[in-house]
């Protein structure tokens, strides 16, 4: 967590830069967004994370003014902007394909928003002729601003080239420069990294983060890549089916998902899910296991038990307690190991365990699996999270 954010949390004086209230949108009869609420603090990076079709890009476009909402209101820096034109919202946006003007150099691209603001249309068209002293003064002013920005973005040497002659990283920085040059309070990024290859992507995302920090601008970042979202965000809004399923810090979303859908969507490999039945005192039975949870659910109700792969302890040999499972497949990543497991009488993979060490197991091995009750997450039939009060280590030696 960023220091200034910690500070602002302590002082309880967070300033919302963006407030979204009750935004709904449907295309034809198909609802895309339903009743979205979102508050983003000054200087914060927030990701809108979700699978394709969840409405995250539509929400971003509504914030930018490129799409109109059916209902709801948007406020930026205390100003109601729901009905304003995109150009009047003082929002910066970096598009998926960066959307640089291909016939203008990097410098001209960055300068264009300033020229639009400071000159009339005729001045703009004839500004290269430097006809009047006023235009010359504005041009000098803009040039100085662009030079300054280019230096801060470390693209001084590349800025006079056409976008087609820039490298992917330089293009991206020019696009960010074009977005930042207007002193906007809010930067919207629509999957700006999705066109880069994996290695470049991580580098570019660090650059975005660094630029964001040094300019202190608030960001809304749309992505379908959870690693990206969890890596760069102060907070992540997980969007599923046209709504915000959870809006929290990356760690909280991973450890403390509010619903089964969030738990399933976040985390690679996908969280393990088992069907269980609530027994006496809120304990949960899954097959032979009895999770020593304390759910408030009445006995007999069905629950889903979800366990992150890293919480599945795999022990070889028969001396340990736990259920016996068969190893189906092993992935040894060097730094990480994944063991795919199935019940001895089943063919398909039903369970994935993450071992923090090199894997010595081989397909076909019999292993014993243990899960501690306080690592398990419980969800009701509708997918809502059920709070449990774990009392002590579970006893897996039962039955």
């Amino acid at each position, binding site marked *: 967590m960023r220091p200034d954010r910690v500070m602002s949390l302590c002082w309880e004086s967070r300033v919302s830069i963006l407030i979204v209230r009750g935004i709904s949108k449907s295309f034809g009869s198909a609802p895309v967004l339903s009743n979205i609420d979102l508050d983003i603090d000054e200087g914060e990076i927030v990701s809108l994370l979700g699978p394709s079709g969840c409405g995250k890009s539509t929400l971003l476009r509504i914030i*930018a*003014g*490129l799409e109109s909402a059916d209902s709801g209101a948007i406020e930026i820096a205390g100003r109601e902007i729901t009905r304003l*034109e*995109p*150009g*009047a*919202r003082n*929002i*910066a*946006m970096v*598009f*998926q*394909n960066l*959307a*640089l*003007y*291909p*016939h*203008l150099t990097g410098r001209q691209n960055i300068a*264009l*928003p300033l020229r*639009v*603001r400071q000159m009339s*249309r005729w001045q703009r*068209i004839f500004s290269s002729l430097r006809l009047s002293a006023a235009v010359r003064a504005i041009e000098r002013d803009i040039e100085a601003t662009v030079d300054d920005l280019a230096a801060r973005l470390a693209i001084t040497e590349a800025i006079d080239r056409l976008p*087609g002659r820039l490298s992917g990283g330089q293009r991206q920085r020019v696009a960010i420069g*074009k977005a930042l040059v207007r002193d906007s309070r809010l930067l919207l990024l629509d999957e700006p990294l999705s066109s880069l290859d994996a290695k470049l992507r991580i580098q570019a995302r660090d650059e975005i983060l660094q630029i964001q920090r040094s300019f202190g601008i608030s960001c809304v970042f749309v992505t379908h890549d959870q690693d990206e979202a969890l890596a760069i965000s102060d907070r992540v809004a997980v969007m599923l089916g046209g709504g915000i399923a959870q809006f929290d810090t990356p760690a909280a979303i991973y450890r403390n998902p509010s619903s089964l859908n969030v738990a399933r969507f976040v985390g690679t490999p996908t969280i393990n899910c088992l069907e269980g039945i609530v027994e006496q005192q809120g304990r949960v039975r899954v097959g032979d296991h009895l999770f020593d949870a304390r759910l408030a659910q009445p006995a007999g109700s069905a629950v889903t038990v979800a366990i992150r792969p890293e919480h599945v302890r795999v022990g070889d040999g028969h001396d340990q307690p736990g259920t016996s499972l068969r190893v189906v497949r092993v992935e040894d990543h060097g730094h990480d190991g994944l063991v795919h497991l199935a019940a001895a009488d089943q063919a398909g993979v039903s369970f994935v365990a993450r071992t923090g060490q090199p894997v010595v197991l081989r397909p076909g091995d019999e292993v014993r699996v243990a899960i501690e009750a306080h690592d398990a997450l419980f969800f009701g039939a509708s997918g809502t999270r059920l709070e449990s009060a774990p009392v002590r280590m579970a006893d897996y030696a039962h039955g």
Partner: protein
Amino acid sequence: MLMAETRAGQGSPRLAPYLMVAPAAALLLILVLAPLALVVATAFTDWHLGAGGAAFVGLQTFEALIADPDFQAAAWNTVRYVALVVPVTCLAGLAAALLIVECRRGQAFYRMIFFLPSVATLAAMAVAWQMLLSPSVGAVPQLLRALGLAPTNWLQDPGTALPTLALIGIWSEAGFAMLFFLAGMKTAPRELYEAAALDGCGNFLDRLWHVTLPHLAPITAFVLVFSSIHALRVFDTVAIITRGGPEKSTLVALYFIYQEAFSLFRTNLAAAATVLFIAVVLLFSLLQLRIARAQGDR
């Protein structure tokens, strides 16, 4: 598969591509290249249609041609015609394309309406225009008279005959230009328009200036060259409506060549003029090729 068959059957596989090209190459040779060679050869002789033998006269024919006042008039009229038709065709095509793109409904209908003149046979349309513009019974002069104007006989006035033919040329060509511009606009990235809106360039003129026109620049270059070549080849309207008159004010390159060859039977002069004409068209085609290559590099 074909290669495999050739290899399994007879002959060397290296021959196969040549065999496949051969029919088209033969046709090209017989119908285009051989006549062209004959024309070029004729241009350097004193041969007239019906004359017995031909003698090589070097550049004499070209010298006579360039000194010919009719040729000078034809060259100058052709330049004027191209200069009138090409810019207006491009602008009209662009304007039509912009209007059609802005249409929410009926895009296909308007596209068809504007493109119709381009697919119609120009010779037939020339007759139709002749009747429309006919000073006594034509619809256009009558309409103008009804509006209280005094139309003159444009096609009989040496000052207005060529511009009138140019208007007909624009009418028949603008649809093509429109189609190219429409195709170009279809490929303009939507994100660029959205970025322009966020930059404060959201209104029609700014969008046109910052996104649409730069995007259409390569296509515009192509349309300019393409319609120049078309305008250079103006013949149908001249041959049907004015026959080069009045006072040779509509005598254009192809009509001059036609007259020299088939009315006056000065075949060598016609051949020399044809050689010059082909050279100019070739120059424009090279220009078009250059532009296409430059676009490929971008």
